[in-house]
């Protein structure tokens, strides 16, 4: 039955729900959001679908803004650990971050912590050369802990502002690989008490509901501090970001918008939500 008079009827709500589900917001999050907006609409006596949609925008921005914490860089070197499942875009993100820091006249060193995958070190080394930053690496088969240790030494001894650590992609369902990640994080911690200062979880914008499980597992294994959503230059809306933000209560900081070192945007909740409805 149409709860509202005029144009704001059940069909409008159905259409809004469809839009959110198709953007990978997920059924549960969508239901929660629509429930909240319907309540606001009822209390405010809203009659126009456009106004209801605006309220939905606001509720969605709120989910993301609630997690917003200003980025702080107080220690030197500032240690950044980059984690996530296979193929999400970690290595490419690191090149982009390095470029951004360099642009701000900060001294950067990269750690090729993926010692497992074929040509992973070469890939980061190629990026390092292109961006203009040194890369500490030991090639395939080495111990990731040793690379990270070396890189942090290099960062300290060469007075670097930032050290960014690449890790091997890993499916979060693989317990041994997640334990390895915790071990790596502990090595960093032992080397420098407050490090890593940032742990960035990289999420592919095309990810479906599995993204929430990824976030949960990586947060538990490595204390994720922020999320980066990559491949937003595709047609995916990255709607999984809402469920992730709520699940691990962390901000989205970065958005990958392409394959070049300059294709990095700082996350803006309003822009993100606007794009979802575009």
């Amino acid at each position: 039955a149409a709860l509202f008079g005029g144009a704001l009827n059940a069909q409008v709500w159905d259409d809004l729900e469809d839009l959110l589900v198709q953007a990978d917001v997920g059924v549960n999050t969508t239901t929660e959001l629509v429930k909240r907006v319907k309540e606001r609409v009822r209390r405010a006596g809203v009659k126009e679908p456009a106004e209801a949609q605006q309220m939905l925008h606001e509720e969605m921005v709120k989910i993301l803004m609630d997690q917003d914490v200003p980025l702080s860089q107080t220690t030197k070197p500032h240690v950044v650990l980059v984690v996530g499942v296979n193929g999400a875009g970690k290595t490419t993100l690191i090149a982009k971050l390095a470029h951004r820091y360099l642009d701000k006249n900060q001294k950067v060193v990269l750690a090729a912590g993926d010692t497992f995958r074929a040509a992973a070190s070469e890939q980061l080394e190629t990026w390092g050369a292109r961006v203009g930053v040194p890369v500490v690496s030991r090639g395939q088969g080495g111990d990731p802990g040793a690379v990270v240790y070396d890189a942090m030494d290099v960062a300290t001894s060469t007075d670097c502002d930032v050290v960014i650590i690449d890790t091997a992609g890993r499916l979060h369902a693989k317990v041994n690989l997640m334990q390895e990640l915790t071990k790596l994080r502990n090595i960093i911690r032992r080397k420098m008490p407050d490090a890593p200062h940032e742990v960035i979880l990289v999420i592919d914008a095309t990810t479906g509901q599995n993204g929430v499980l990824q976030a949960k597992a990586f947060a538990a294994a490595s204390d994720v501090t922020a999320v980066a959503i990559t491949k937003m230059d595709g047609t995916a809306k990255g709607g999984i970001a809402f469920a992730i933000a709520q699940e691990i209560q962390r901000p989205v900081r970065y958005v990958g918008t392409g394959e070049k070192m300059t294709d990095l945007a700082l996350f803006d909740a309003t822009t993100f939500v606007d794009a979802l409805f575009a």
Partner: protein
Amino acid sequence: SLSDRLQAVFKKLGGKGRLSEEDVREAMKQVRLALLEADVNLQVVREFVAKVTERAVGEEVSRSLTPSQQVIKIVRDELVSLLGEAEVPLADATLPPTVIMLVGLQGAGKTTHAAKLALHLRKKGKRPLLVAADVYRPAAIAQLESLGKQVNIPVYSEGTTAKPPEIVARALAHARAEHCNYVIIDTAGRLQVDEVLMTELADIVTVAQPHERLLVVDAMIGQEAVRVADEFNKRVALSGIIFTKIDGDARGGAALSVRSVTGVPIKFLGTGEKIEVGTLEVFHPERLVSRILG
């Protein structure tokens, strides 16, 4: 799980001799929820639920099954039938080499599966050649060469200065000279909306005339799977799908989406990072049904 949810639905409705339309509709709400949570595309879910509803309404409740088990059986059967046949074979050209081309979004697993396919073919007594046609991604060629070396399979590459269609043309000539009967082309990841790169793909097709054009899809992909598969299919006329990273815990509903929008068979499942026997499975629909239904 879906069976728990359906049992709860039917408990409320009580035991009956036939599945009424209302009973079925109530049950279908749970099926719809399960499929959406599994990342099956919304439109595909609607069509699937409509089909299953039609089959279920008026069905005699079997004496050996409870109503919820009955509905689950119908859902499973329909899912198996939609996911497609098991073990659809790879092309085997009468005039070798058989050319296989791998395409798909960035990071889906193309390079890894090019090497897996090569190993699979060699184990079957074939003589494959891998072709490094990704000139964009840093160290992509090194990656394919490293994987090829691991399993002792030759890789044809020309570095990053030549254009992919030209590399592929010369790779085919090389394959013929070396009597390779299979050529597996690894292409760069690309967005289905990238006009320049999608045109490049069509150019590679023109040059290589691949007998197999396989779309490589990551099992964790969400709603967008339909749009991606549809566009790749329109531009490249796919012959098969490789569904990767199913060794993770993604429900993999995208398999149903991709299959129903393209009608193309899922030929392989990727289940592991290593290039070894066991990380490339020949497709069996049952392998995906339980995980999709949760």
